[in-house]
Structure formats: structure tokens, C-alpha cells
């Protein structure tokens, strides 16, 4: 009743974060508890090892890349606001509640989502996906299941399709163009109802 497990007071700059990311108070609280849970040694910041402890992530072929997406280049730890800002990319498009009139595009716009995915490929952040980087991702997603030969041909095809200015690399604009053909990128959506019974749970 009066004694809830944690309250919004624990979260630094909660109001600002809510404005910036568009998360509701309840979701922010939930993410905060998740953050605390992941932060096993209670330092207030997460390290790559903390992410590594998550089972579902460990079996994900590009798990490492997703983890490094949370850390800015050169940074060893991520604090709660940064954690939430990255996750904010994954909010569904249609639910922007804060129209604070800034020119900045919302965090969860389609472009931002595509940018996130682009950076999963482009690990050195030079703005282009080189052939080598593409091969790395393919190898990660396929492991030992395909031969080197097949991998090369897949990469070749992908670059030919997407690379319009023939510089043997895929820039962000070219990446976006390729996505125009495909449907809306699939991202985990929040703030929509969960099916209450799923396999009997």
C-alpha cells in the first residue's frame, strides 16, 4: 500500500527523461528496476559483463554488437539515462505524447531506428558499412552453418543491390533507400497490451 518497492524519487532527473524519451512514469520505473537488477555490484552503472549475464542475449548471434550499442565509443560504463535513451529508440512510432515543440525529431522516429540498426553493422562508426563489416555481421548471424564461399556471394549481392555510388560501401542514405522497398522495420513495441495468457502463463 504505502510501501512500494521503489519510487520515482530514486530516479535522477525523472521528469526530464520522460520528456526526452517519451516513456511513461510506470515504464520508466520498470526500466529502472531492470537496470538495478542488471547492476549486480550496485555501482549505479552497467558494464558489458552485466549485459552478458542475460541469457537471451548470450544466445543472440549479434548479442555483442547490441551490447556495444549501449556504450558510447571509449566509454566503459553506461548509466541509467543513457540506458533509457538507447531503449527509447524502440518505442512505437505513433505514441509520441510530448509535443514540446522542439525542432528535434523524436527519439523513436523511423530514421533513428534505422540509424541504430545501421550502427550495428558499422562498428567503427565511419558512416559506411564496408564489405569487411558486412562479412563480419553475416558470419556472426550464420556461424559455421555456411561456407566462406556462400558468405562472400551473399555479401557481394547485398552490396551490389544497395551500393548506388559504387564506392564498395553502404552509406546510411543507401541503407535507408534499401529499406524503402522493405516494410517498416520490426522493432519491439512497448506501451501496447500484452496478451495476458500466452501458453498458459
Amino acid at each position, binding site marked *: 500500500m504505502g510501501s512500494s518497492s521503489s519510487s520515482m524519487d530514486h530516479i535522477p532527473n525523472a521528469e526530464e527523461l520522460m520528456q526526452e524519451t517519451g516513456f511513461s512514469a510506470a515504464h520508466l520505473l520498470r526500466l529502472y528496476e531492470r537496470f538495478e537488477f542488471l547492476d549486480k555490484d550496485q555501482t549505479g552503472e552497467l558494464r558489458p559483463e552485466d549485459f552478458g549475464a542475460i541469457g537471451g542475449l548470450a544466445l543472440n548471434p549479434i548479442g555483442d554488437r547490441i551490447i556495444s550499442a549501449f556504450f558510447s565509443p571509449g566509454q566503459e560504463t553506461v548509466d541509467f539515462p543513457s540506458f533509457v535513451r538507447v531503449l527509447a529508440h524502440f518505442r512505437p512510432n505513433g505514441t509520441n505524447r510530448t509535443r514540446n515543440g522542439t525542432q528535434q525529431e523524436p527519439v523513436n522516429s523511423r530514421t533513428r531506428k534505422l540509424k541504430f540498426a545501421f550502427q550495428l553493422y558499422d562498428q567503427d562508426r565511419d558512416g559506411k558499412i564496408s564489405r569487411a563489416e558486412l562479412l563480419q555481421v553475416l558470419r556472426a*548471424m550464420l556461424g559455421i552453418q555456411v561456407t566462406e564461399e556462400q558468405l562472400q556471394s551473399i555479401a557481394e549481392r547485398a552490396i551490389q543491390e544497395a551500393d548506388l555510388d559504387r564506392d564498395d560501401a553502404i552509406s546510411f542514405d543507401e541503407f535507408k533507400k534499401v529499406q524503402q522497398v522493405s516494410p517498416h522495420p*520490426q522493432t519491439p513495441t512497448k506501451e501496447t497490451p500484452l496478451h495476458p495468457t500466452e501458453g*498458459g*502463463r
Partner: protein
Amino acid sequence: MTWSTFPVDNLLCRCLGISITVWWTFLFVFIIIPAVFGVSFGMRRFYMRTLLKIFEWAMLRMEMGAKEKNQELYKPYSNGIIAKEPPSSLQQEMQELRGSAGCLRSEPEFEMADIFYFCRRGVESIVDDEVTKCFSAQELESWNLLTRSNYNFRHISLRVTVLWGFGVLVRYGVLLPLRVTLAVTGISLLLVLTTLVGFLPNREENKPQNGGICVANHTTPIDVIILANDGCYSLVGQAHGGLMGMIQRAMVKSSPHIWFERSEVKDRHLVAKRLGDHVADKTKQPILIFPEGTCINNTSVMMFKKGSFEIACTVYPVAIKYDPRFGDAFWNSSKFGMVNYLLRMMSSWAIVCSVWYLPPMNREEGEDAVQFANRVKAAIAAQGGLVDLIWDGGLKRTKVKDAFKEEQQKLYSQVLVGEQDQEDQSGDRQLEEENPEGDRNNQDSSKGQ
């Protein structure tokens, strides 16, 4: 002065004496003796129905109160953080991503967008994952007036607060002492009962026989009590210290049980041998094993350890499901010790569980222990309405294996390369011979992620 207090003292003593006598009579007549003879007064159902009505009413009041104050009442399921779509395989999701429904491709067609699938799964698991959920108490849709089940239900309505206060009085003033006296009586008879254990067994003809192994999903040590109510078993489990250890040692004096150290489990042959010997002896009671190896929070069933399925004998699966609305039976051993846990159990409203005895299963030809274990697990999960998970209960304490990652990679490669393994393999060999430069490996790509 002494003169005036004397009659009061006397009165007090007499009152005390009478109330204690009444208490004990009540206890024996209404609870212990009927329990021994299996007679029921129908009080339990009435009590449960009343409680449920009260919870619903409380929930309504809280919703009304929340609307007045213009807040949102946080419910774990309807305001969940991840929208779960119906579970589909990797193949199906990829098809959706590409927007090509039902059009099969004969050559590998990678699309840049494929990464979204993995990205999404990854971020979902960062926000919330199945394994962690299993080791923490289940969140309730509506509050059941216990502070311990209170997850974000704040003070909203005065009436509900009053009700909660009254509930505390009832639970700690009436139910708890009742159960404690029972427990004290009970322990001395080597029975520990919590009052009002609702019991709905099913399919009684499937009860385990001698020379068999009974397996069940594990939520709490109370599972043992509940099953023991219905038949005698030999138990296999971790040797504990403290109160639990005392009980364990006492039990061994009356019937054969197998207690071991977790570290000794690594010497699996020893345990397997003891199990095998016990089972081979047809005069001995059936063994009760919890193959998950640890307590899970009763929303799902985790991986069954194959050890008990390697022994060649009949397996009797049992599914146990607790109703969380009355009290959460899950023992979070990393959070509470045994005594603390018992206290919480005894001050809950009630522990209500359903037990299903499933038809016996045997290992089939050509089935190895792991497959057999998974089959049994699926049957138990299906009957109990639990989620069937692949994860190892040991994840409470350790990490994930690489085999799972390979599984994901395999699934994805099948989407690209297709199921035509035969043709592809022969095709590959030809290509490799023709293009020896194909071996010009990118050093980085072979590092693997």
C-alpha cells in the same frame, strides 16, 4: 489493593484458561480430526469464494480511486513493457520482415533488414527476460491485500487501506497463531500442515507405484508435503542445515530417503547408482524427484536434468500448480531462509494448489534421456498451464551455453540457404573445387562474434 486485583487476576486466569481450551478444542474438532479422516465441512470453498469477492471489490475501489486522482493504475500485464506477439518461429518472422508471404526462394537471399529480427530479440531480452522472471515472484494482476504481493499498488483508496488493515489483523491475529499452534502440534507428529490447503487431485488411478519414479515441477518444499498427503515417497534432494536438516534426518529414520550435497551431484554416478538400486527393489516406495533441480516461481517449467531419466523404469509425471491469488508459495531461496518463508506462508490467506497425476510414461525405443526428459516436461507444462522453457534451472547460479547460439545461427541459415541440404552440399563441393580462392579468409570474420 491486593484485594481488588485478586478477583481480576482470578477472572483473567479463568478467561485465559477457557479461551485456550476453546482454542484447542476448535483446533482438534474442526481441523485435525477431519483432516485425519478426510472429511470436509466445505468451509474452504466458502472461504476462498469470499476472499475472491473481497479482492475484486478492492480492485474496483482502487481503480475508481485512481481515476479520480487521474493516475494510471499500474498493472503488470496490461501495462507491460513489451508487446508480445504470438510466438512464431525465426522463419515466420523473417518472412514477415521481408513482406514476401509464401514465396519461396531458391537461392540465398540476404537482406540488410534481417538484422532487425535479432536486434529486436536482443533488446527485448535486455528489457525483460524469461529466465529472470522465473526466479522472482509472479506479479499479480490484481492485488490480494498482502503487502508482499504489492508491486506498485499505491495508496489510493481509504476503504482499501482499512480493509488491508483489517486483513493484517485477521491474518496475524487469527490465522497465524492458528497455524503456528497447528505447526507445533504437527511437527511433533512429523506433519507440518498449513490450514486451509485447498486440494484438487485428479486422475487418481495414475498414482505412482512401487519401483517407479515420480517427477514433478518444483516451486517450494511444500510440494513434498502435498504429494506426501496422497502417498508415501522416498525423497531425493539437497541436504540442508537448520530446521530443514533436522526434519530430513528424522525422516530417514522411518523410511529410506536419499539426501546428497549439491557438489556431490557432480559425481553423478553415485547418485544414479543409489537411485537405480532403490528403484530396482520393488518393495520400496516410489522415489519423488524434482528434475528442475531448484525452486521455480510456478509460471513455467525449466529444463529437466536428465539424470533421473537415464534410469530404466516407469516415470509418473505430476503437475502442481499453485493459485497465486491467495498467497505466493514460491520459495525464493536467495531471498528468504526457511523460517522466514514459513512465516510468510502461514500468514498468507491460504495456499491453494491443484495436483494432476498424469499417465505413466516410459522411455521409447531410440529416444535418449534428454528427449525423454523434454517429453515429460512438455506433458507436465501442458497439464499445469505452465510455460515450457528450454532454460536450465542452474541459470540461477551460472551462465548460458554456446549450443543455444548455434541453434539460432542454424535456424537463420536455413532461412537463407533453404532446407535442400542434399542439393546444396553437392553444389557446394563443386563450387569449392572450382574456386580455391574462396579460402582467402577474412581474418576478422573467422573470429566470430
